[in-house]
């Protein structure tokens, strides 16, 4: 049964007409009224920067906030491989429908049909927009755009700029943003961190921020607020996320009434540089595009594994017949290009069976020797040169000579703030876009789709849908930041900060964060069980108590204080971690990145339970220390046939 609090607002009619239909229903705001309306955008990654720029261009008054020293540093910048679009420039029979279908299937049938179709539909306009902005995508010799393949699909639809596609797309969105800052429609607030959402009469009306340079708390009012703050993967401490990426803005919205959807859906990326030691704080991703030409293997013989671990042989000395190309063996149809969740689990399976190739036993090979033979040095260098360099810098090993070593790591979170078709949350006037929302990737995101979603939401969706809400708001006066709700919110933030300084404990924030990360990786990582998840919930509770007794936050509020920033974010990571474990416990099935050991086939593949879990779980906050309430949005597949994911044939 549909939940009365979750109204998805999916338009009626055939799939391919839904977005057109919705756009034609949306009320418009006239240019003279747009000038009276204020919008806050939090976050300046692909979603935030493109939304702020597009809204400014439309004539709204936009304020945009980011925690770094410049909007250009947002973590979208680190995306390597590419961005998908259904252009069918390769004539390989690609289409909007296929991109839609691959994304739904890749997400293991846990995403909304209508949202995903719209994403595929606007994908082509993104490429057009980006080329017009001067993004130097890779080109063929005839001057046309080049493409490559990514995991989980059988066509070449990924556009790329070397291994720096995210950087180039973000610089494009940031340039569009700069243009609006110069035009005076957008005001940019770098080094400002959102610390609370202000809700007045049930509607989002502003935010409280901390100026990270002076430490002052500041109030900002608006007619609507857009959250574009990315994912919460850093709950695991070790991840491919940037050090400052955090889920705090999402948690503040959750506490103010926005439901949090599918928190347990976290993506574990198969090709990351393995953990090297205790002192490590960050994992580095090696782009999925490497799987286009790289072959993944471990030795067939245990004695070879031993020799590799003692460094008595080099991987290149192991003869072809003694190598187990396990992805090609298990999934002949897709081979090394299976989706990320499948590739990650397969790597874990081999390593758990004792075939891990480094000292820790947690690494597999990604080998380019065959590709170098086939394509030649120069073409491999053109495609992956900077990634090879990056690998060598970090590991001091040369991938031109010996295969890379890789292992899965936390990379992306498909879960996020629940939104309807308009990308509005359960709090009117509050929107969530990009990785911060939950809407398009289901249980697993396909490669090169995060950039697509961030820009689809920011350039083409939210600037349109937000008009429907704002069309009823232009006669309302500017939000008064002296209102009692602002007083209350600021007081609460101040109390939170005071509480942290008052603890005067001995343990640095990062030490506590590492402990949380260990709990998360152990019990809420690649293989989850009911027992483990219950344990995780208990251990997180205990760790939170320890934190409030013993954390050390040095310095004062009114200065540049990175330890205070980290402590505030860690408080929210405790809550996120707990919510993830609760959601994972509730979802007693395996789907996408969520793998419950209790729910697998005899061959060890994930086993979905469509009868009982074909829904979006949306959690409602009920107060501190109280159990959140689970709401369910049933997923209806009207246009495609739900099937077991098959990458074997």
């Amino acid at each position, binding site marked *: 049964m549909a939940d009365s609090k979750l109204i998805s607002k999916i338009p009626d009619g055939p799939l391919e007409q839904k977005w057109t239909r919705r756009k034609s229903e949306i009320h418009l705001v006239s240019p003279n009224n747009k000038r009276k309306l204020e919008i806050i955008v939090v976050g300046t990654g692909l979603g935030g920067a493109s939304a702020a*720029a597009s809204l400014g261009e439309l004539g709204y008054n936009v304020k945009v906030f980011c925690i*770094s*020293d*410049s909007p*250009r*540093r947002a973590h979208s*910048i680190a995306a390597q491989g590419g961005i998908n679009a259904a*252009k069918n420039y390769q004539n390989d029979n690609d289409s909007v429908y296929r991109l839609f279908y691959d994304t739904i299937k890749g997400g293991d049938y846990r995403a909304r049909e209508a949202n995903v179709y719209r994403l595929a539909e606007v994908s082509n306009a993104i490429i*057009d*927009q980006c*080329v*017009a*902005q*001067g*993004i*130097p995508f*890779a*080109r063929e*010799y*005839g*001057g*046309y*755009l080049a493409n490559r393949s990514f995991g989980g699909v059988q066509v070449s639809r990924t556009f790329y700029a*070397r291994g720096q596609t995210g*950087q*180039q797309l973000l610089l494009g969105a*940031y*340039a*569009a943003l*700069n*243009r609006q*800052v*110069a035009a005076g429609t957008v005001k*940019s607030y*770098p080094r400002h961190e959102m610390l609370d959402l202000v809700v007045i009469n049930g509607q989002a009306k502003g935010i409280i921020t901390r100026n990270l*340079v002076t430490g002052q708390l500041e109030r900002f009012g608006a007619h609507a607020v857009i959250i574009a703050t990315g994912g919460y993967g850093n709950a695991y401490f070790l991840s491919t996320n*940037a*050090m400052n990426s955090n889920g705090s803005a999402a948690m503040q919205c959750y506490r103010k009434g926005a439901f949090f959807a599918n928190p347990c859906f976290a993506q574990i990326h198969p090709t990351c540089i393995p953990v090297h*030691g*205790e*002192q*490590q704080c*960050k994992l*580095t*991703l090696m782009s999925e595009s490497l799987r286009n030409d790289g072959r993944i293997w471990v030795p067939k013989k245990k004695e070879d594994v031993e020799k590799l671990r003692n460094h008595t042989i080099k991987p290149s000395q192991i003869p072809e017949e003694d190598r187990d190309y396990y992805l090609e063996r298990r999934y002949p149809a897709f081979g090394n290009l299976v989706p990320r969740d499948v590739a990650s689990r397969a790597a874990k399976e081999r390593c758990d069976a004792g075939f891990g190739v480094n000292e820790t036993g947690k690494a597999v090979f990604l080998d380019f020797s065959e590709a170098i033979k086939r394509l030649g040095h120069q073409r491999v260098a053109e495609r992956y040169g900077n990634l090879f360099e*990056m690998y060598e*810098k970090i590991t*001091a090993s040369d991938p031109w000579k010996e295969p890379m070593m890789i292992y899965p790591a936390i990379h992306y979170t498909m879960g996020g703030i629940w939104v309807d078709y308009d990308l509005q949350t359960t709090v009117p006037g509050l929107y969530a876009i990009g990785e911060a929302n939950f809407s398009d990737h289901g249980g697993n995101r396909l490669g090169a789709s995060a950039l697509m979603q961030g820009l689809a939401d920011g*350039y*083409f969706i939210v600037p349109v849908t937000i008009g429907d809400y704002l069309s009823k708001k232009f006669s309302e006066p500017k939000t008064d930041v002296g209102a009692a709700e602002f007083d209350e919110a600021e007081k609460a933030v101040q109390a939170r900060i005071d509480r942290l300084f008052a603890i*005067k*404990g*001995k343990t*640095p924030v990062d*030490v506590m964060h590492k402990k949380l990360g260990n709990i998360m990786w152990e019990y809420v990582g690649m293989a989850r069980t009911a027992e483990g998840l219950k344990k995780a919930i208990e251990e997180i509770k205990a760790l939170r108590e320890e934190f409030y007794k013993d954390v*050390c936050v*040095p310095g004062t509020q009114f200065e*540049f204080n*990175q*330890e205070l920033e980290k402590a505030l974010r860690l408080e929210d990571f405790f809550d996120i971690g707990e919510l993830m474990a609760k959601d994972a416990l509730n979802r007693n099935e395996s789907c996408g990145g969520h793998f419950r050991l209790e729910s697998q086939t005899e061959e060890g593949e994930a086993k979905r339970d469509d009868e009982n879990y074909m829904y979006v779980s949306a959690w409602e906050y009920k107060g501190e220390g109280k159990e959140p309430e689970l709401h369910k949005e049933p997923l209806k597949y009207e246009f495609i046939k739900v099937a077991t994911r098959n990458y074997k044939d």
Partner: protein
Amino acid sequence: MEFNLKIWRQKNAKAKGHFETYHISGIESDASFLEMLDILNEQLIREGADPVAVEKGCQSSGPVAFDHDCREGICGACSLYIDGRAHGPDDHITTCQLFMRHFKDGATITVEPFRSRAFPVIKDLVVDRTAFDKILQAGGFISVRTGSAQDANNILISHDAAEKSMDAASCIGCGACVASCRNGSAMLFVAARVSSLALLPQGKVEAKRRAENMVAKMDELGFGNCTNTRACELECPKGVSVEHIARLNREFLKAHFSN
């Protein structure tokens, strides 16, 4: 491994800064430079929280503030001047890509912020680089409205032009070029953007305006002049070539003479 670290400490923009020396040991050779600083900070936080040490007169200035984020060489946040070089003693890297195996065990390492009149210190090793944003706001864009673009393949761009444009576009905006330049010039940064767009047909329409406005803004913000020492190119983590400065000069002169 162990090290003596001579680190610039400065409470805020107005305070006077000074060097403090710290000893650190037990560092894995595979640790990155920033991971080493994390460990130092952990040590400093524990010392500061230890009442016995404080009673003995241990005056902790607290953990060292430094900018960092992606830790994979692409966000451009990290900005340390290590042993007299922007991003430290290795070529074409950011500080986060510098590993302790590059140092001798027991070495004394000097760590300063990027220094330039246009980059005031915020705290310790953190500087304010908003001047870069302002330069780009002056013209570092192509004026295209969302949704008004034609089909992407209608604009043909030769493989070589795209590659060259990409070389320039790989600038991460870290400011190493400014910090390494004895004149504190931002020419390489400005050139990277101007050149990247000028190489593409889409960027040609506004090329003149862009070059003039960005150069004017750079001068206004207190960056110095370029005297072709090429230190910027040497220290650029992405190896952006001074060839792009030549192109910027050309674009600037073209604009100048056509007025």
